[in-house]
């Protein structure tokens, strides 16, 4: 082993330029792997985050006009029996009209318990003016209302729920969700503001939740688990929906992206393997004379093969190390220099050490695999042939 290793090292050192070219070749392959991988997973993560990160991922709703009065019981029951959900928050929604003088605007008044709802919606970060509501009849409006109703902070408005009645509310803040449909439709307030406006007791019409990080794509399975809880308890069957069923197009887009990223990586890998295999095959040809001499001196076939396996291993390891460094450097400069106007990177990269380790391991394995052919050749090499052809 030691002998084969030291001969391998010496062979590699004797053709320095050739050796560095192979290492560079592997390194570029690995760096493309690392960079593309980080880029695509970064893209996906940010896309998923932007699309569903600040919304309910599994939602339990009762039919329109019905309410859940034992919602705290349901939540504590789900929390202890269903794994994979980070937070539940009860909500109640009232649809109606906001009136300011002669101006009117339709509104979706959403009541939340902020301690838990903030973990899903991050309301605090989205407030552009004012503060969050902290007592009954205080509301925060989307910035879209500012223009449509021509209102300002601390203005008093009337909230009219058809067939039920009106409530006076006070605007304590404005939010910006960066989604036009929400900015022009939602009002956010406490649970009891909405409960009062609807004239109901301490009830809610839905329970929203967010899935733990990493399990986000298991939403369908988790939702099914949630559904089973209701069947088991015989509490009637509220509807349980999940983000995957609600976002089929996004999902097929993500899948397409994943597949194309895998394709790119597979082809990069294939070209790296072919390059290593062909270069090592050439090295065996170049070194056949030396292998012949070593064999005449009695080196075992296994050791003769090991020389090339070690060459593959050394090339693979060095290539992987430089490749990871290059890939990270590339990723780093991409996030540092390709910036949007507000200073955030155009494409956020997601550096996953596990993925990088995997890319490096694949490169090393590929180099080792590619050296199998020359190793076999070397073991089969006949001393006589070498001496005759010298």
């Amino acid at each position, binding site marked *: 082993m030691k002998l084969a290793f030291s001969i391998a090292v010496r062979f590699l050192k*004797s053709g320095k330029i050739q050796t560095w070219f192979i290492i560079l070749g592997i390194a570029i392959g690995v760096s493309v792997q690392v960079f593309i991988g980080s880029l695509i997973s970064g893209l996906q993560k940010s896309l998923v985050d932007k699309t569903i990160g600040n919304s309910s991922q599994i939602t339990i709703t009762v039919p329109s006009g019905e309410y859940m009065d034992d919602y705290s019981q349901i939540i504590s029951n789900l929390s202890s029996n269903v794994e994979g959900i980070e937070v539940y928050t009860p909500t109640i929604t009232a649809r109606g009209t906001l009136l300011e003088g002669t101006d009117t605007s339709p509104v979706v008044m959403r009541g939340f318990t902020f301690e838990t709802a903030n973990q899903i919606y991050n309301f605090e970060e989205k407030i552009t003016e004012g503060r969050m509501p902290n007592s009954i009849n205080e509301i925060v409006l989307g910035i879209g209302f500012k223009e449509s109703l021509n209102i300002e902070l601390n203005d008093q408005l009337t909230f009219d729920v058809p067939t039920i009645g009106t409530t006076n509310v006070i605007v304590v803040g404005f939010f910006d969700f960066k989604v036009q449909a929400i900015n022009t439709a939602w009002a956010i307030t406490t649970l009891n503001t909405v409960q009062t406006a609807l004239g109901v007791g301490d009830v809610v019409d839905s329970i929203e939740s967010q899935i733990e990080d990493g399990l986000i794509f298991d939403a369908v399975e988790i939702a099914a688990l949630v559904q089973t809880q209701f069947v088991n308890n015989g509490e009637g069957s509220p509807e349980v929906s999940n983000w995957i069923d609600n976002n089929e197009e996004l999902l097929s887009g993500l899948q397409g992206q994943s597949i194309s990223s895998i394709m790119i990586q597979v082809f990069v890998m294939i070209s790296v393997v072919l390059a290593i295999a062909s270069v090592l095959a050439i090295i065996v040809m170049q070194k056949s004379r*030396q292998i012949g001499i070593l064999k*005449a*001196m009695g*080196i075992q076939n296994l050791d003769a093969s090991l020389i090339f396996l070690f060459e593959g291993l050394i090339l693979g390891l060095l290539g992987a190390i430089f490749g990871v460094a290059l890939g990270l450097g590339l990723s780093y400069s991409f996030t540092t220099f390709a910036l949007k106007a507000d200073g955030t990177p155009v494409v956020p990269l997601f550096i996953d050490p596990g993925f990088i380790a995997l890319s490096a391991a694949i490169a090393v394995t590929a180099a080792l695999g590619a050296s199998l052919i020359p190793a076999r050749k070397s073991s089969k090499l006949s001393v006589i042939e070498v001496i005759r052809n010298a």
Partner: protein
Amino acid sequence: MPNVMELKEITKIYGTKIQTQVLFGINLAFEEGSFNSIIGQSGSGKSTLLNILGSLDRPTAGDIIINGKNTKSLSSKELSDLRNESIGFIFQFHYLLPEFTALENVLMPYRISKKPITKEVLDYANELLDIVGLTKVKNNLAINMSGGQQQRVAIARSLMNNPKIILADEPTGNLDSDSTEQVYELLRKINHQFGTTFIIITHDRHIAEKADRIVEIKDGRINLDITKANA
């Protein structure tokens, strides 16, 4: 003296479709410590004979007994070990490993045997380089040495594992006459000093005549086998 190497009815046929017989029932035995030369015209089969003697090639039929072991029954691993321990090779084209220094080349047969390199072993390698007169250039890469120097390194290397037999194929084939004389003297000196058996293939009548025994191969058969009276 006992025989260190024996050939019994060795035949060698090359090719499968078109068969060419190169050796026809060769019987030869070499005594321990003897200095032999094998001569013959090119194509006579002498190189094939040497390759078979060195266990680099297997005969089509017949037995080779090296150091009392019939090589027929040995696996390729056992054959490699036997080669490593018992036979030293000196080839016409030196065949040093150009990536290694003179000293490293000399040590290589010992390293192949996978025994640890002790101070004694290193001293012995240095002594061998001293015997062949290359102490000064022992740390030069083989590729940076002259032809004569390389051949002397190859000779030192062939002695490293204290083999009983040294096989030399045209050892002076591409050297000038001065170097040829030096190399011959060196081989003789080693023959006396270590009692190593030499089998030398050569074109050079001059060298051949200095050997204790001359075997001439012609058309794959032994044509002549003379042992000098004083040997």
